[in-house]
């Protein structure tokens, strides 16, 4: 009852104040925490160079951002969702159900995912996906049968690796990075090591075998980090044997504390990632609500500015921060120029 009374009086005040609310004149962005640094760099430069106010950028994760993006059309919904993965079918449907039918997909570049350890720790300098698979899998094939992962030291997997306890800090399941790690490292390693084939041969269906390849051991040697890379860094700082999964940009900002390992013999650099030689990378996107174009001032200009050569190009501030610029940037620029929505564009 008390609640009802309080809420009623608050609502009365609100009803009075809601009429005061002015039309929104700044772009609102939400989504992936991986894209957040890039989006804030662009927002800052956009505010400096245009007469429009600086866009407001929130983080919270790709899925959360896309969910809010799909809440509907109108001034109290966001205009752009940042995402570190492609929008899913289900999300497009959810969007359409809420009236968000025209979505423009913009790929801003690529993000490299690197494997790094304490700079003065053991010599983790070269990894291959199958080594990671063997170190991380919950169950591995031993003599034709699935058994709990027996490896406790890296050197047991491969003599070239240091004689150090296996201790890995990998992104938690809510991160988009985890998906990339599972697909491009664990699954690839599983296939490369022949474990996948052996599982299928022993009578496991292909889908189950894939799931087994990507399931991570739960005996404490692999730790899910649900926070951000700063947490992974803190864990590595405290644990000399730890190996962590980071974004390239984060590593580049903390080179005095971390050393990076090659993956399959290829060092992660902007060049190797943009050519696709380095295996673990993913595209980064943002999605524009086409219905808001022309309604929210500065929305199109912000999107155009984001993918302009001077920003997202190889010499721009985004690349300087660690984004691997997209070789097909001009195509993306044309998409925004012509306001091609996902259905009409592809």
């Amino acid at each position, binding site marked *: *009852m*008390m*609640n009802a*009374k*309080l*809420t009623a*009086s*608050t*609502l009365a*005040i*609100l*009803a009075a*104040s*809601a009429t*005061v*609310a*002015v039309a*929104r004149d*700044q772009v*609102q962005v*939400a989504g992936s*925490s991986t894209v*957040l*640094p890039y*989006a*804030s*760099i662009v*927002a*800052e*430069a956009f*505010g*400096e*160079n245009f007469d429009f*106010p*600086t866009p*407001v*950028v*929130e*983080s*919270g994760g790709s899925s959360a951002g896309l969910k809010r993006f799909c*809440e509907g059309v109108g*001034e*109290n919904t*966001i205009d752009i969702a940042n995402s570190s993965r492609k929008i899913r079918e289900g999300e497009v449907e959810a969007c359409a159900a809420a009236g968000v039918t025209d979505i423009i997909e913009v790929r801003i570049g690529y993000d490299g995912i690197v494997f790094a350890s304490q*700079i003065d720790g053991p010599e983790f300098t070269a990894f291959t996906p199958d080594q990671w698979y063997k170190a991380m899998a919950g169950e591995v094939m031993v003599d034709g049968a699935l058994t709990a992962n027996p490896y406790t030291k890296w050197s047991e997997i491969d003599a070239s690796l240091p004689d150090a306890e296996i201790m890995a800090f990998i992104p938690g399941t809510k991160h988009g990075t985890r998906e990339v790690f599972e697909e491009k490292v664990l699954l690839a390693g599983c296939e490369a090591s022949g474990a996948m084939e052996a599982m299928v041969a022993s009578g496991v269906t292909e889908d189950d075998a894939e799931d087994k390849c990507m399931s991570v051991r739960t005996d404490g040697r692999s730790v899910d980090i649900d*926070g*951000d*890379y*700063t947490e992974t860094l803190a864990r590595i700082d405290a644990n000399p044997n730890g190996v962590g999964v980071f974004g390239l*940009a*984060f590593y*580049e*900002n*903390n*080179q*005095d504390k971390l050393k990076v390992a090659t993956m399959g013999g290829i060092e992660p650099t902007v060049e190797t990632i943009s050519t696709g030689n380095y295996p673990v990378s993913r595209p980064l996107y943002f999605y524009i609500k086409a219905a808001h174009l022309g309604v929210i001032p500065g929305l199109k200009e912000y999107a155009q500015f984001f993918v302009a050569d*001077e920003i997202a190009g190889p010499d721009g*501030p985004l690349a*300087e*921060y660690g984004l691997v610029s997209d070789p097909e940037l001009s195509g993306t620029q044309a998409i925004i120029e012509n306001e091609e929505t996902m259905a009409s564009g592809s």
Partner: protein
Amino acid sequence: MTDMTAGAAPVRGTLVADAHTRKRNASEKRFRLYGAIAVSLAVIALVFLLTSIVRNGAGAFMQTYISLDVTLDAAKLDKSGNRNPVEMAKVTTFGYAPLIKDAMASTIAANGIEIEGLDKPEDLISKEASAQMRDVVLANPELVGETRRFEFVADGRIDGYYKGRVTMQSAERDSNVTPAQLRFADALKEAGLLETRFNWNFITWPDASENRPEVSGLGVAILGSFYMMLIVLGLALPIGVAASIYLEEFAPRNRLTDLIEVNISNLAAVPSIVFGILGLAIFINFVGLPQSAPIVGGLVLTLMTLPTIIITTRASLTAVPPSIREAALGVGASKMQTVFHHVLPLAGPGIMTGTIIGLAQALGETAPLLLIGMVAFVREYPSAPPEGFFEPATALPVQVFNWTQRADPAFIERASGAIIVLLVFLFIMNAIAVVLRRRFERRW
């Protein structure tokens, strides 16, 4: 007298401490010791916390600045040559960056600085510099073509060098800064062009992107927190006090009021994130208030603070002795006159103390703000109230949360600095509460 008794020491009085008394005295001593241990543990924890925060965060209040003579080259900034600000605005901040490069080259030549292996000396200056120059030039187009001395903020790594965060060793490993650049910074310092001094901008400037930790500040966050506190004060105090007076002085005692009482105590213990969910559902989705705005934050925090205010207000109303009420009623005052002329003024200090403590609690709250979009990168200052209530802003604890997530180590220092600012505000508020209680509270 005391001297005499002290002199007559041999007679200790009639009381002879028997075993039971000794036991009681000993247990009292033990209890005092436990108390002292508890207090000292708390003090040690506090000192540890404060020193680690101050040690990490003190650097945020200092900032390194570099002075440069920049030639505002007309060929680069005003190609048409007619000093028209509208045309000059087409030159973006990227067009201003080469000026710094040139200015660095001429500074090196003018001061005869020779550093082996020095590459990209312009990296010593914050990326903010080109925006700073562009603002000055667009405001004063007649400056184009002249050479003018600018004072720029130094890059975060250079700044870190003078705060001990960056060393020659770490610079060797770091691709963002080279030892040669650090030596160059030292040379500039000798030439009197570089200085480290108190950083007011940390309090006044807005947040900055990850490329420019050195120019990030708390301006928007402090304004946002202040606006929210205004809203909380303006709503929670009248509603809370009115509700408590009604419940305490007028409402009949029955099951219904008992139920209300239980609910209020319950609400006070509800995790704050729940209020955020409520705020998102009601204020943003149902009422349609804007996201990231202090009005929504303020309303959510009002809901959160109300139980605290109601509980403390009721406690201070009950503390007013019934004799006051009876005396007032006895001379013919109405119930309402009794409450407003006699009870409320006496309960005032207690109500104020409770309100301030509630506000302090609300000031440090982050969780409910997560859901209503206030955990965001906001660079524009909100305008003055009432419009400002509806414009995006962040809050102090949110800024701490944001900065701890960023990659550049300079932001860790900023986050600790922001904690210090937050603690200072909390300290001031709590000190006011204590002073109010001490000075105005009446005891019966």
